[in-house]
């Protein structure tokens, strides 16, 4: 039986057993990685996760089962288990689960690598680790680099999704990911650490885009300077320019996550928590007119790219906050039914063994019209936070903290030296209400967003332009 036939069989068989809805997904994640420390290769790895996940609705209970044996018998057993477990728990349901009647698609799409993974030899890929280490090791003038860890990952995600409402979606998305961790240390001034993830869909063309050879040299030189030169952040209220990297993380944490309708409805309450957004809050003000945040799965080349979600619904941009108003949530077909709306295709699963749940894709703060110079020029005294390491946010997505890594003092409209670990600790409403000017350059950053039980990590982009906030009291990180 072909894979297509196997998943259609699973859907049909679940319906035969009595499921009111059935969905089957063939899902293969194939990745190859090369890991190095200080330029020497520790090892290479291959990971292949391949199997079928089945989801059924039975008497208002939702059952999910997965198997990596791709034969009739195993798939049949998976369907039966999902059905039976849903059935025996249906008696515990107070409010039966139903899905909306969103239009689902029948389509086939794939992301084509401009430069396929095979366009560079293994020798060259290995050589890149060594060359980057040489750049990093030579960058500081006095400080040492005890560790430069680099993980290079090529991956391809292939899916076939079918459900009893007629969806049939075949997709193939290749991605390139790089993680690195660099520690810069001096005997007198201690250490500074930077961890970064770079990621995009597509192939090796992304390496050129990232131009790590240039950025790493520059960054490490800056980290050394920070160790020697950075001063304590000002204690009084100051204007703050929040760099696009930090803005990206902020919109992910304090707009994207609280806008997940499943979280609002309590489905993640015991894990990642709930949301300050409650049912009925669409239309309420969360910030000023500068604050528009969009989540868009369809951005070409993005890390969180897709055209149809795992329930077969076509993807589109979602305006989560629009000119300071809570405008639209991220929905799947279950939450859409409860809200009396249509799914906006936010349902994604990490791999065959995971149930599809509501996820962000590529979340960003809508750019404005200021150049960086214009953002800074009328600041008498302030701080520019360009990058971060530590952050966290409470489980309703209201109180959040970001600790700057590369940060500058601003005096009379000019950057004047480094500030050590300034802490931006604000509520969501304060942040979106205090944005007083918005940069025009939109940049994206890659992340692996965690959610669900078992936890699922999925690729996302988050981004925005640089922003200016007025009158913020910054904190100081502990030493």
């Amino acid at each position: 039986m072909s894979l297509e036939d196997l998943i259609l069989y699973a859907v049909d068989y679940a319906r035969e057993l009595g499921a009111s809805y059935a969905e089957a997904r063939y899902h293969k994640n194939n990745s190859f990685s090369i890991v190095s420390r200080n330029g020497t290769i520790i090892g290479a790895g291959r990971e292949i996760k391949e199997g079928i996940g089945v989801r059924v609705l039975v008497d208002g209970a939702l059952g999910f089962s997965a198997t990596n044996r791709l034969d009739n018998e195993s798939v049949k057993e998976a369907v039966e288990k999902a059905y039976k477990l849903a059935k025996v728990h249906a008696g515990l349901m107070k409010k039966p689960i139903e899905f909306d009647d969103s239009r689902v698609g029948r389509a086939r799409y794939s992301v084509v690598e401009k430069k396929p993974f095979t366009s560079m030899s293994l020798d060259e890929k290995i050589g890149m680790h060594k060359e980057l280490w040489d750049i990093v090791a030579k960058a500081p003038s006095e400080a040492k680099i005890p560790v430069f860890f680099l993980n290079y990952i090529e991956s391809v995600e292939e899916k076939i999704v079918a459900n009893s409402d007629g969806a049939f979606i075949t997709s193939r998305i290749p991605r390139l990911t790089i993680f690195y961790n660099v520690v810069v240390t001096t005997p007198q001034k201690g250490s500074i650490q930077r961890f970064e993830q770079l990621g995009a869909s597509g192939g090796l063309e992304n390496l050129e885009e990232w131009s790590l050879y240039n950025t790493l040299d520059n960054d490490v030189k800056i980290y050394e300077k920070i160790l020697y030169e950075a001063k304590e952040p000002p204690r009084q209220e100051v204007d703050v320019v929040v760099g696009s990297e930090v803005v990206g993380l902020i919109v992910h944490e304090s707009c994207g996550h609280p806008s997940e309708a499943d979280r609002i409805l309590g489905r993640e309450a015991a894990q990642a928590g709930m949301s300050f957004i409650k049912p009925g809050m669409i239309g309420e003000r969360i910030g000023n007119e500068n604050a528009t945040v969009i989540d868009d799965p369809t951005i070409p080349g993005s890390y969180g790219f897709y055209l149809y979600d795992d329930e077969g619904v076509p993807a589109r941009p979602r305006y989560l906050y629009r000119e300071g108003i809570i405008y639209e949530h991220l929905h799947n077909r279950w939450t859409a039914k409860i809200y009396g709306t249509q799914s906006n295709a936010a349902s994604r699963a990490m791999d065959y063994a995971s149930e599809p749940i509501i996820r962000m894709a590529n979340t960003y703060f809508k750019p404005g019209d200021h150049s960086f110079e214009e953002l800074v020029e009328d600041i008498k005294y302030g701080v520019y936070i360009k990058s971060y390491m530590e952050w966290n946010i409470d489980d309703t997505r209201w109180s959040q903290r970001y600790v700057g890594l590369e940060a500058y003092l601003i005096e009379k409209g000019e950057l004047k030296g480094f500030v050590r670990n300034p802490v931006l600790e604000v509520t969501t409403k304060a942040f979106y209400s205090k944005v007083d000017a918005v940069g025009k350059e939109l940049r994206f950053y890659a992340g692996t967003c965690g959610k669900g039980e078992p936890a699922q990590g999925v690729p996302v982009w988050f981004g925005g332009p640089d922003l200016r906030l007025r009158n913020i009291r910054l904190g100081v990180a502990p030493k």
Partner: protein
Amino acid sequence: MKEELLETSKKLVDRALSEGYDEAAVLLNHRKTVMVKLANSEPSVIQRWRDLVLNLYLVKDKKILVLALSPTSLDEVNKTIRELIGIADKLYESPFYAPLPEPGKPEKMELVDKKLLEKIEDPSDIVEKLVETAHREKIDYVAGMIELSYAEKALATSKDALFYEDSTSIQTYLRAFAGEDGSGQWSYGSRRLNEKKIEEMASIAARYAVESRNRVSIEPGIYDIIISPMVAGNLLRLVGFMSSAFMVFMGMSMFMNKKPGDRVGSEKLTLIDDALNPELPGSTGFDDEGVSTYSKPIIENGIFKNMLHNSKTAAKMGTKSTGNAGWITPHPWNLVVSRGDYSFDELVGEVKKGILVTNNWYTRLQNYVEGVFSTITRDALFLIENGKITKPIEKIRIADTLPRLLNNIDALGREQYDIWWWEVEIPTRTPYILIRQIRTSKHTV
């Protein structure tokens, strides 16, 4: 599936050697798992898995390849093994290479609870009991999860290790909500099904939810804090991960500039990697290299005693494996914090002005080497004044350094709890812990 797993793992090792690899290890993990996730006091999804994950460790000319496959057929595995030999040829000798060790003589552990095994097919009565127990308190609703699992692992290595172990485990946690602002969360993890313990877990979550209603705000500052086993499990897991020699090599450890024998915490703190504890769900008789596991202190009376090693990190540091492989990354199996002699009330009685933190999440580090971190509290949080819990308070951050946290431990409870959940990935047995003079912070606007 014991025989099938052993035979397959052995066959694959032979296959790898015949393809030209110098060394090979094969670890097969087969599991049957059911998980019921709860929200609004009802199941939100019932999930079930049956799968086989095949992990391969291959060495050619001291070059290392690691594979994790969920193979749809053995032919596919053989194909991948063959393909990768071409890659191995081009890699460089790994700086971490050391020959696979001689196999140990692992202790045969009884890790299967038949009662738990049966419940995997239909856990609905336990689910019902969980929800019902929590609702005995005046709560509004609960969310949470219960997972029951049967796992088999088979290991074969080219040094003739051929081992099998099967085990059961339960992980469960509940978060209860009461009124406008009351919430409490607790968890439990074990190899055995113990209905009393599950009920106790549900009761603690519900009680904390009720007691934490009507919170007041406090100013951040320096406080004595009592951390619950949930919080201790979350923070000490970082210490557990950082005690892995690989994390030290990777610049991800506060032990980077420490060596065994150095003081790293208060003399009251003893943290053990308790590999052979038959109740805790991380227990196992052998590691991924076939070395027998054993229990060992990571920190004993405040002194850094053992870095965790596999044979590679051990060779690089001129020591012996501690039976904690991970082929690349050594890791703890279970963490146990030795008990103190305080009752809970006595711990509270020691605090003049402080905070009882019952749960936290989202712990992140600014700098692993220096252990600079913050974490945000969640659920029940109480002010302690003059030796008494006086009122529930609103969320606050703990923002300090791990070295200070470990050094300022002043007293430990005598009752230990077995914690295992989303934010405590390493099963941890720990009491409540009193830590002096810890910094807290809060949003400024």
